[in-house]
């Protein structure tokens, strides 16, 4: 419990890689990647939604699909079931989510479940654009139907492109959507790379959103630092955010790739960044020795866990860590 402005670093026990997409069979849409884990706690299992890819097409291009794996609630390293089908179809010709639905974040709403997801389209001058859509499930989260063919969080005057990485939360009776918005495309050796920052929107109905309109998290490694996966929870009397960040150029390696950052806030709008609190970094060897990304923190049965990605941004799956330092979750 903290009474001063600082925060004692978290202490995590790594439980190792939990799900490897290559272990799945008879699912042609699930060949590589298990990205952006996001939890839904059910009676007997913890359902972890993730995004995956079938093999690339003849032109080397991927589509992303979203699915889930059910983990035994008594032992989260034990897989009970894997989705039989992707949870959501791809969008129609010309729509924002024609070429991918990734990542996804799920929350109960009005007796149903709602998924917020980034939809991917392909462009000509840059490789892609994304916007955030919404879909509903009436079968307990196995399948979702989109509320409409367009996005609920589109590009706007100061968020011009690459709206992605949605995480849906409900605090004080109001929906909060944390997401990323692109700020620029940088041409790096002829390849267009997006720079993005963490943003927030609020809503009472989950469909009509008011954008907060400001970057929530300052940059640390460089002015063009890219930040993703803003994962917010309330504990010990304050809001906490885990996220990931990387350099804007030459980032597909150990030195400049994703790491997990941290910030805390009294009110969800003013955030103090302090990455040392995250308390987790790359391992000396193994599946998470190069980079760490897409943190997601959740609590179940008195324990707090973090799901995250390792090397290759989830190409080989996701893992879990268990919090061993004390935390009063939700209060």
């Amino acid at each position, binding site marked *: 419990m903290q009474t001063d402005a600082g925060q004692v670093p978290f202490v995590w026990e790594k439980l190792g890689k939990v799900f490897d997409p290559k272990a799945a069979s008879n699912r042609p849409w699930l060949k590589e990647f298990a990205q952006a884990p996001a939890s839904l706690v059910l009676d007997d299992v913890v359902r972890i939604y993730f995004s995956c890819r079938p093999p690339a097409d003849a032109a080397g291009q991927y589509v992303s699909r979203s699915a889930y794996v059910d983990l035994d609630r008594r032992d989260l390293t034990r897989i009970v079931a894997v989705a039989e089908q992707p949870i959501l179809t791809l969008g129609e010709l*010309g729509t924002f989510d024609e070429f991918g639905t990734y990542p996804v974040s799920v929350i109960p709403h009005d007796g149903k479940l709602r998924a917020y997801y980034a939809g991917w389209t392909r462009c*000509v001058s840059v490789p892609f654009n994304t916007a955030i859509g919404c879909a509903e499930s009436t079968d307990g989260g196995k399948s979702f139907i989109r509320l*409409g063919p367009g996005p609920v969080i589109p590009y706007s005057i100061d968020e011009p492109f690459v709206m992605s990485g949605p995480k849906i939360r409900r605090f004080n009776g109001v929906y909060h959507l944390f997401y990323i918005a692109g700020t620029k495309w940088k041409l790096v050796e002829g390849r267009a790379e997006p720079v993005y920052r963490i943003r927030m929107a609020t809503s009472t109905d989950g469909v009509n959103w008011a954008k907060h309109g400001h970057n929530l998290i300052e940059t640390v490694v460089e002015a063009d630092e890219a930040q993703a996966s803003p994962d917010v929870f309330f504990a010990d009397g304050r809001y906490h955010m885990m996220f990931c960040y990387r350099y804007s150029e030459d980032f597909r390696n150990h030195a400049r790739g994703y790491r997990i950052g941290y910030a805390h806030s009294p009110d969800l709008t003013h955030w103090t960044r302090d990455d040392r609190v995250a308390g987790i970094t790359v391992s000396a060897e193994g599946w998470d020795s190069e980079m760490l990304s897409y943190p997601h923190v959740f609590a179940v049965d008195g324990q707090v866990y973090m799901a995250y990605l390792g090397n290759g941004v989830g190409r080989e799956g996701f893992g879990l860590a268990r919090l061993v330092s004390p935390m009063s979750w939700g209060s």
Partner: protein
Amino acid sequence: MIQRRLGKIFDPTDHVLPNACVEFAQSPQALEFPEFSRVYFATRSVDPGGKTFRSHIAFADMAKDFSTVLRVASKPVLPLGDLGSFDEHGIFPINVIRNKGQVWGYTCGWNRRASVSVDTAVGLVVSDDDGETFRRLGPGPILGPSLHEPFLVGDAFVLKTADLFHMWYMFGQRWVREHADAVPDRVYKIGHATSRDGIAWVKEDGVQILPDRIGPDECQALPSVLHYRGRFHMVFCYRDVHGFRSEPGKGYRIGYAHSADLRTWTRDDAALDLQGGAGDWDSDMQCYPHLTLSDGVPYLLYNGNSFGRHGFGAVIPDLA
């Protein structure tokens, strides 16, 4: 009914245009000055390789009866957007209003897509020099896709009333192929949004305000509204979804509707009855209409054959 035909009033090949543009003067839209009328239009530069174009905004200052061209913009009016932005590959058209002592422009920005040819969104630009040049209020659009308007939001026309800004605009409904091997064609309709400040807009989201005349795949674009003699008049253009480039019977024509309250519209194309002249510049197609008052006289500016490749013309409509 048409009271008088002025014929073609502007040919882009008669002038030196900014951005090395040669042909096309599309979607003329006027801003009235005491001594002249400034007509903005979209012209085109050719990309390296010669196969693709980019639309740019330019203008011509014309006599108030649109009989002569006084001056043409000599420098770029508005640069295209940055890499990856909604208006990177073209701006066409622009709708201009006077607001807060400035000139505000509502742009339609174009960006190229992989599976379909293009997407569009509405941007907002502001001029502090009476409309000679414009700057963006931000890099993104003020009106883009939404839950029930998934793409191709554009062609904004803004009308400032005493208490509210109204916008009529185009939104896409679907992309369809004429046959399995054909490139996709788009279906779009006209929608309505309102705003208190001209910046933050509330859409009706997916509500088509005009009925179709030639079936559910009718494409409706470029609304323009004028208050004249106690009622609101709207012109727009509409066409078939396929074959509209090459088959005259399927190309753009100009439609008409009227309203007393800006909420409900009665479509009555026959009341305007704008026909192309046989063998004339607008014989095969009439498109991108714009209603404007000049010295109190209503003019209808529009493009003719080939989507305005060879310029624009005007008529004086008899607005009842």
